[in-house]
């Protein structure tokens, strides 16, 4: 499956990545080779197979709706690249 540089650029934008020209070219070549290999999947008959998304069969795990101890605001903000006592400060959205 050939992946074009235009497709790599589109997928990069979805993934919030910015690649240079050389990077884009290399990624397109690597991805093409990998996806060509992955065509092997078509050799397996899956007409009666459901999907496996979890290794073990399990239903959703719930807990009682009780307030429990959690991180303090100070702790939660401690690793913020832009220090503030109450918020994560980021460039403007609009």
């Amino acid at each position, binding site marked *: 499956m050939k*992946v074009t540089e235009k*497709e*790599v650029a589109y*997928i*990069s934008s*979805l*993934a*919030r*990545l*910015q*690649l240079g020209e050389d*990077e884009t070219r290399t*990624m397109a070549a*690597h*991805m093409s*080779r*990998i*996806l060509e*290999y*992955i*065509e*092997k*999947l*078509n*050799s*397996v008959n*899956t007409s009666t*197979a*459901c*999907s*496996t*998304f*979890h*290794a*073990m069969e*399990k239903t*959703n*795990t719930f*807990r009682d709706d009780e307030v429990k101890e959690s*991180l303090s605001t100070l*702790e*939660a903000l*401690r*690793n*913020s*690249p*832009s220090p503030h006592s109450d918020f*994560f400060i*980021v*460039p*403007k*959205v609009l």
Partner: protein
Amino acid sequence: MSTILKTTLHQLSEQLRNRDVSSVEVTRFVLNHIAEKDSSIGAFITVCGEEAMQQAEAADNRLKNGDQSPLCGVPVSLKDLLCTRGIETTCGSRILKGFHPPYDATVVELLKKAGAVIVGKVAMDEFAMGSSSETCAYTIPRNPWNTDHVCGGSSGGSAASVASGECYASLGSDTGGSIRQPASHCGVVGMKPTYGRVSRYGLIAFASSLDQVGPFTKDIRDCAIMMNCIAGHDPRDATSINIPVPDYTKALTQDVAGLTVGVPKEYFVEGLDTDVEKTVRHGIRVLEEGGATIKEVSLPRTDTCVAVYYIIAPAEASSNLARYDGVRFGLRDTNGASLAEMYRLTRSQGFGAEVKRRILLGTYALSSGYYDAYYKKASQVRTVITDDFRKIFSTCDLLVSPVAPTTAWKLGEKADNPLSMYLSDILTISANLAGIPAVSIPAGFSAHGLPVGIQLQAAHFKEEVLFRSGSYLEKHLSIPFSP
């Protein structure tokens, strides 16, 4: 005192509990050994000298008061994707430089509760994506048996730190073979538990349906001791399974009489190194001499497992790594004029090439127009592979095979060929897709003196079969665990 580095965890534990040596003495000795040795091994990203000495003192107080915990006072290392409160945790990536988690992972809490001494955080492929640990942004660990060669990956630092005597055990993670393969390449024991057996709370996620934490140790008894500590239900991990944990040390019976051992024919294929095959076949004969029934079996979808994995794992990773955006932790590129530009610049600067490649592959596989052909198809083939294992384990107790097609390759040898690197995982990936437990035990050496491991796989929650057969093999193969 220098011989203390050559002892196993359980031998050291006995000496500590008998008060023949103190944890402070051992820990100081280990830290000095790391300071001398690690410049040539490169296993450690962060050495926690001060914290380790404090933990050693606390452990000595517990031992003085008669604490019998087998891990009390024992120096261990942790793969740098396990959250350690207040200690930098980088996942081998620039994007998490300076990240100090506000909490400990559950497995870290359990080790601390048992009195273990954490000497440091060790090197790994960036975000656990790799098979050689060469994508680590901080230090590339070298194989203690031959420092021109890789340790394997992604838990290369864990394997190297145990094999070089820089600690007595380590915790790593295994998503497609990242414990078993470096264990094989570095000549130590490495176990991937059943999915859900060990909590993933605080394990920084790569592929959530495949990741499992597991131990690296010098021998199988040490592995059982570590598993006793870390296994068990955790309500903070929604995928943690609530099944009682047996005492795995009681399964170390060194006896295989009556076991039916399957040898999957698809694991002995073209490209398998002759030294690896010779060593593993010798291990199979040893099992047969011990009274096991050996039979050839078939796992017909083995040749598709790499394809399945390299759709599912990158797809899950593309979602898991979306959180690295410069907002709440880690690297932030401040040159962006807008929030969207900040995300793009931060992520592009912070992630290495392999991580970007897998994020792109995963995003592609999940994108509109391709989801059915790639992700849905891969998840269906995963069901077929899991069913293949269920059928096999209805007639076999155990599967035995090589861990990897080759021994550890030279540093840089596969750096420019990602597909070649991916194909080296062909013998380990299926266990993650099916969620079954598996272990690598040292089995011998190649003609060039590089370690070869033998892989044992069992049905879900049958780690005891691995300990039973692994202890038998270890006794009868008698392979040294450090250079």
